[in-house]
């Protein structure tokens, strides 16, 4: 379920969440590996996590209307 949600993310968001949250890399290693700024890394990570959270919410409560 979570892996499916991650697979539907845009590639840059997917790679950041894969390195940071799946593999547990320190954020400094993630931004060095991808050559992105600290801010960009955090924005991509946040978007990725927010989408996975929403996918979980939809999965767990499919009957309820999803707010934005």
């Amino acid at each position, binding site marked *: 379920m979570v892996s499916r949600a*991650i697979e539907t993310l*845009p590639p840059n968001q997917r*790679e950041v969440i*894969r390195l940071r949250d*799946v593999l547990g890399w320190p954020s400094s290693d993630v931004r060095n590996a991808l050559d*992105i700024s*600290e801010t960009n890394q955090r924005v991509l990570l946040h978007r990725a996590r927010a989408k996975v*959270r929403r996918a979980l919410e939809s999965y767990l409560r499919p009957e309820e209307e999803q707010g934005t």
Partner: protein
Amino acid sequence: MTCIELVELATDLLEGSMPADERARFDEHISGCEGCTTYLEQFRITIRLTGMLTEEQIAPDSRAALLDAFRDWRATP
């Protein structure tokens, strides 16, 4: 701080990259907001569940496709 602002700052908080003054406004809001408290807890659970995946379950794109994606993203004005 509004709920919308707080939701956008959840990763800043959890990554420990939030300035002290912002952290104070974050704490002040969330202490009185059940919705945001729930959101933050769901966010933590999401991260924990993601951390239970193995690398094999998340197939990265080819290196070239990823590098292209990041190059395009950075080039966006």
